[in-house]
């Protein structure tokens, strides 16, 4: 990266770090710059990857099918004025229908059946059976915790309590192993500042 770019990147990095002290004009500048630049980048990417190839070019070559989504898109722009904002409801209904329709079978397959297929694997032999038993116990007790139709009382209450314990261990585990991932990000930023910008560290 040329020197000027490194300097701009480094100064913006310090603007964001200043947020840790408190909200200040430097952070506010970086925030507003980021909102503008990222919104612009997305518009450009969608134009280059979607509008130009799938609408403009296709219609240019005489394929009139994209006129349908083009019309639906223009209906959405209708929301800008009070009189025509009702029209957008048709496009939004189509959009919501698509993603609801895709979600039903894919969640059924990926979230439910895939997990159940894993859960029914036979018990491990010997000492492994203790672990398999614990996994089954945890699975059933957490399901009990999430059971809505009866209050957490009696046997259901005990199962739900055991379920909370499993949940807390699971939360502690994923909190614990996420720390390393977040620290890695900070290490990379420090290496950028100390090596690429200030040249304190030896280059790779």
């Amino acid at each position: 990266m040329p020197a000027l770019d490194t300097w701009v990147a480094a100064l913006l990095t310090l603007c964001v770090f200043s947020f840790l002290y408190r909200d200040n004009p430097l952070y506010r500048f970086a925030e507003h710059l980021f909102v503008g630049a990222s919104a612009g980048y997305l518009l450009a990417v969608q134009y280059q990857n979607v509008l130009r190839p799938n609408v403009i070019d296709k219609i240019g070559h005489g394929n009139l099918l994209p006129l349908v989504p083009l019309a639906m898109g223009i209906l959405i722009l209708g929301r800008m004025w009070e009189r025509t904002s009702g029209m957008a409801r048709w496009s939004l209904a189509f959009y919501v229908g698509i993603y609801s329709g895709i979600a039903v079978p894919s969640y059924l397959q990926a979230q439910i059946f895939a997990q159940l297929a894993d859960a029914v694997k036979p018990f491990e032999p010997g000492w492994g059976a203790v672990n398999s038993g614990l996994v089954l116990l945890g699975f059933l007790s957490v399901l009990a915790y999430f059971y809505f139709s009866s209050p957490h009382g009696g046997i259901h209450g005990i199962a739900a309590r055991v379920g909370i314990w499993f949940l807390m261990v699971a939360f502690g585990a994923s909190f614990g192993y996420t720390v390393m991932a977040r620290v890695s990000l900070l290490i990379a930023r420090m290496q950028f500042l100390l090596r690429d910008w200030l040249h304190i560290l030896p280059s790779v």
Partner: protein
Amino acid sequence: MGETIDTRWFEPARLNLLVGLLTFIAFLAINIRRAHASHEGLFIRPLAGLKALDEAIGRATEMGRPVLYLPGSGDMSEVGTLAAITISSRVARRVADLGCDLRVPCYDPVVAALIDGTTREAYREANRADSFRPGSVYYVSATQFAYVASVTGTMLRDRPAANIFMGSFYAESLFLAETGNLTGAIQIAGCDQVTQLPFFVCSCDYTLLGEELYAASAYLGREPNQLATIAAQDWAKALAAAAVVLALLLSAIGHPEFGQLLKTS
């Protein structure tokens, strides 16, 4: 070149999924009839997070400070976002009744358009259409951390009294919840991303765990049809638990084939 053109009208390998789907729809139909039949409605155990929602909006109204509602940084392909939209219409109705200031910065532009519609409708139903402030529901940026930069700026400058996080959140969950914790706002979160739940549990006052997010809109609405869907989910959960136990017992006595029925292509 490549496999031949497929002209089959049904994928036999997905029969088990079809049976599962039809079973769930049957549970739904049965429970809708049950819900309409029983006069005091189906029992659903209370959710602390949702009771706190009313208190939080009430407190924000007393303090004259805004309520911040974040519908998540997922797009419409995440069903958590759909849940966030349905919950937003309930929250907007309570806000319209109490007349306090609502802010809904959105990650996804389609979500912004939808929630703008549900919020206007909520104010109209509370017959306070005139006090709806256009621009209170606004698109920020469909880039994860540009959205976070703008929202944390709003948290620190406008000091909302209540932060409500509902929907699909990712790595930025801790950033938003910690900044909100810093401002002393009461924070209620509901999220369907398992890996983010620990951060909400640690930084928010109340957290709806996983599927409690999906139960929330039925709770707040309390309509029979909605409560019926929760009962249907419970029946399916019980069925899933029973299927697993049965499969394990059968495979223990030498018949593992029952478990194979759950395999999907």
